[in-house]
């Protein structure tokens, strides 16, 4: 079922969490709402579930306006960052909860619960209590619980935020696969751009209560609409009004035209990739992403003077400082005539 949100507004006191937000989520897709904390992404997700009432605007699920419907009638599966496990119930009872509310008969409930526990690989733990599970297991139980009632859409609010890095990576892959199998429209919220790019087909980048840009991971990375998206999706250096990706920085030992002098400040080896940090003549700090081979070829050392050439740079019109001859310019999109820009770099 496709989901659309039209002109959503929501304030908490003086804080404007959503400022005229509209998004379109195609049927069967896996979409990420990506943004820093306070950008409104969780509020938007909760509004779709009906856990938050909008001040203005509407939510449509499968074309139907559900704005007036209470959460329990929206048929959304919701997964919370901190699991929201029913602590006094076993894993089985947790997953069976929605089915018992729907008054399924016992045999059918048991069959369905075990089918789901198998899907999330918790079948042997059905009699355990949530306190006896690890974080990753709890989150899988929460997902099974949400899926048990065959929701029209699945919404996940920072589902891996409370887990450690390794478990997080496993669960990502696993969520991706689960989505491929079930095909149910899924939206998940994250502040981790790598996670969003890894899992989702479509990304919606949010900032300060508005949508900055939406599209595929490649779209956003290669054609960011503005400085915020450029710096939030992927790493970036800022040189005056220009933005350049660290892997687009070329480093040379001899001076050439259009190169800038730089002092090597620090070299950090991160496996295959090496991060080299520089200071420019005007005090600007930038870094370059090199391969191990490049580093060996250049024989860089800390304190050395080298020359940098920023490859493809971008600048954005309407940025805080005018001018720039960047490679791509495109105005920031935000609903309607609101063209004011605050580059958060």
């Amino acid at each position, binding site marked *: 079922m496709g989901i659309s949100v039209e002109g959503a507004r929501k304030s908490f006191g003086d804080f404007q969490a959503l400022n005229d937000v509209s998004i379109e989520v195609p049927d069967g897709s896996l979409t990420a709402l990506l943004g820093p904390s306070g950008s409104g992404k969780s509020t938007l997700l909760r509004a779709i579930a009906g856990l938050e009432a909008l001040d203005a605007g509407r939510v449509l699920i499968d074309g139907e306006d559900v704005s007036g419907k*209470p959460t329990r009638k929206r048929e959304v599966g919701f997964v919370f960052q901190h699991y929201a496990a029913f602590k006094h119930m076993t894993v089985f009872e947790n997953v069976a909860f929605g089915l018992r509310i729907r008054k399924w008969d016992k045999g059918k409930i048991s069959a369905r619960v075990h089918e789901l526990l198998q899907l999330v690989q918790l079948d042997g733990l059905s009699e355990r209590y949530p306190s006896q599970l690890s974080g990753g297991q709890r989150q899988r139980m929460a997902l099974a619980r949400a899926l048990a009632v065959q929701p029209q859409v699945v919404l996940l609010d920072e589902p891996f935020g409370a887990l450690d890095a390794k478990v997080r990576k496993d669960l990502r892959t696993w969520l991706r696969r689960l989505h491929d199998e079930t095909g149910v429209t899924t939206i998940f919220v994250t502040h981790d751009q790598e996670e969003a790019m890894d899992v989702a087909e479509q990304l919606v980048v949010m900032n300060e209560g508005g949508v900055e840009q939406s599209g595929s991971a490649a779209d956003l990375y290669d054609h960011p609409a503005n400085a915020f998206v450029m710096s939030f999706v992927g790493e970036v250096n800022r040189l005056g009004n220009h933005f350049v990706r660290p892997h687009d920085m070329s480093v040379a030992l001899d001076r050439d035209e259009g190169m800038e002098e730089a002092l090597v400040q620090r070299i950090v080896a991160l496996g295959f990739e090496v991060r080299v940090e520089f200071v420019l003549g005007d005090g600007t700090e930038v870094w370059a992403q090199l391969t191990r081979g490049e580093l060996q070829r250049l024989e860089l050392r800390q304190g050395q003077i080298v020359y940098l050439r920023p490859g493809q740079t971008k600048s954005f019109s309407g940025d805080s400082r005018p001018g720039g001859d960047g490679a791509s310019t495109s105005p920031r999109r935000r609903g309607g005539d609101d063209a004011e820009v605050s580059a958060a770099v």
Partner: protein
Amino acid sequence: MSAPSRWGLRALGLGYVFLLLLLPLGLIFYKTFEHGLAPPLEAITSPDGLHALKLTLLMVAIAVPLNTVFGIGCALLLVRHRWRGNVLVDAAINLPFAISPVVIGLSLFLLYGTTGWLEPALAEAGIKVLFSVPGMVLASIFVSLPFVVRETVPVLQEIGTEQEQAASTLGANAWQSFWRVTLPAIRWGVAYGVVLTTARVLGEFGAVSVVSGSISGQTQTLPLFVEKQYENFNLPGAFGASVLLAMLALATLLAMNLLKRKEDA
């Protein structure tokens, strides 16, 4: 902390509890059974004694369920529905803690007594509040009202609203969510409040004494019975009833612990 100071602290704590709590209570038990089981038993099983026991249990049977239902509802209101009046409600709930039970009894007098506000209406309806059971029930409810609220509020705050939200996404309405999610999650807070409420109702003296008139065989609860026996120099009767009261309170505590242990097992 060094060993001597740890032992010193321990001795101080235990000594305090022993001298001020255990010693007086132990003496009552000792005095009660000093001349065997017969004298206290006789006092308790006298018609007045049995009536006092029945009346006390009646107070518990009425006041505890009412204050439990009210307490849970009030705690939900205070924690889940934030509005300005909450501060006032919160303060008002504590009044029975702050006011002397005698004053509570007197306030009921002013309301229901012969010159009281509600007297004409009640007289017309033929309801007698003072010097009878209704007044004693009102006094018991008044003095024991805060316990369930006070014990439930922190537990409700601690569990937060996420579990309830999860229940609503799974199709549960407010009623189902309360019975299946909220109440089981707060049950030990409520249970503790119920035990405290019961203990308070069992032992209430001041407020009940004022409104009941303490008429033997009619409006005398066990604590009032104890006082009457003591005044009449029937010490075995006074001690016997005291021990019975203590046993009732202990039984409540024990019942809760057993329930909890059964669940944890």
